[in-house]
């Protein structure tokens, strides 16, 4: 049966109603399923390290620490101050190493270079290494997000 001014028949309308209803119902399950797939992870706000471990670090040398799941490097500058970097290449996420002889950070994956301050100078990296703030709190070295 079709009404005189109706755009579609009762059958088409009912098909759409049922199909659309089923699709909408199924869609409500996508959200919870997708949420399950992502495990919770929060980047640490700060990491505390025993400052004794880093006291004897000579200038122009680095020592590693764990910044959450990422590697971090603490580097002593020539003037004796400490700087902390997230030792992950800004190009495609490979872990970088510090080459004291060259005074540069190097990423072996695609030959990316950073100078001793973490600034990208050659190869594919698009931005400098991420820096972290270092401060001394009694016997512990506190590494915090910068800014």
């Amino acid at each position, binding site marked *: 049966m079709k009404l005189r001014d109706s755009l579609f028949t009762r059958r088409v309308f009912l098909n759409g109603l049922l199909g659309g209803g089923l699709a909408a119902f199924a869609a409500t399950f996508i959200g919870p399923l997708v949420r399950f797939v992502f495990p919770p992870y929060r980047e640490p706000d700060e990491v505390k390290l025993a400052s004794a471990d880093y006291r004897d670090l000579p200038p122009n040398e680095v020592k590693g620490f764990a910044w959450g*799941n990422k590697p971090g490097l603490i580097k002593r500058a020539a003037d004796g101050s400490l700087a902390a970097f997230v030792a992950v290449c800004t190009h*495609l*996420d490979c*872990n970088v190493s510090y080459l004291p002889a060259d005074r540069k950070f190097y990423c*072996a994956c695609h*030959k990316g270079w950073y100078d001793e301050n973490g600034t990208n100078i050659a190869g594919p990296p*698009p931005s400098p290494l991420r820096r972290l703030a270092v401060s001394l709190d009694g016997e512990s070295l506190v590494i915090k997000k910068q800014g």
Partner: protein
Amino acid sequence: MKKLRTWLNDRLGLEALSRFGMAKEVPQHSHTIWYYTGSSILFFLGIQIVTGVMLALYFNPTIKDANASVARIMTEIPLGWIIRSIHSWSATFMIAVVLIHLLSIAFTKAYRAPREATWMSGVLLLCVSLAFGFTGYLLPWDDLSLAATKVGTDIPKAIPVVGTWVTSLLRGGEDVTGDTISRFFIVHVCVLPLVIFAILGIHLFLVQRHGMSLPLKAEARGEKTPSLPFWPNFTLRETGVWLVLLGILLTVAVLLAPSLGPAANLMAPAPAGIKPEWYFLFMFQTLKLFPARILGINGELVAVAVMAAGFFLVLILPFLDNRPAERKGRIITGVAYAVFAYTIAMTIWSLL
């Protein structure tokens, strides 16, 4: 014996199968050799399933035990290193034959109407095969496989809006961790097999539905090309090819078995001289060459866009090349040769 056959036939209707095999014809011409590539892929897929199940008997997909369990397979389990070697080499051969299969179809233009859907399902099968290779590469969990996976899963990050989301979907979090191994393992041994069987079913159904494609020249001549029945004439020849492939596979697997690097350390710098599997080398080299910024746009984003566009063009190739015999078709053939040459050149360069 005869009684058993009749009994089975009455229940299962096997007669239809043999009738189909006898009715299916394989044309004989100068490009017939490419018809063998399809069944060779199936042969290697079968080997992958058998050796894959065997390896999974001992493999532990955890951050603590993944590398150690592969080490155990290689040093303790009888003939373990050979099984691993066969699995690894068969993967290489399978991808190689998949690429030859695809190239032979591209250059004989077998994708022309009405076989567009067959081509597209085939391109999807190539993607699934590459995904198999990519997920399998991480599982031994040595320093090379960790670095390759970090790079591979970081590439989608360059996609605007959803990129970061895709990367953490692949990794199970912001970084590559133990969750990534579990994820890659279950995708490698469960999700991808289900997907490949589904698409393969469609692909094979379409191949049977449309029959074997003829080369352009033979089709233009219009006369009937001589052909042989699929069963038993062509099947017997295929058996010969399989036997030779099996011999080559076993020989290479015994003589050139892969070694296993030290267990990956999430905090260690990437080792020098990292390389992905050979079929990703051309992308690897391209990524190395791309500068950080191109016309003010992030270089990675450009690389990802180029790769996505390339994939899309290959996927819809039958629709682009809809007049294969005319000038447009010849131009597309030229472009295809150029792209092919680029890929080969980049691969060789990255090996130097």
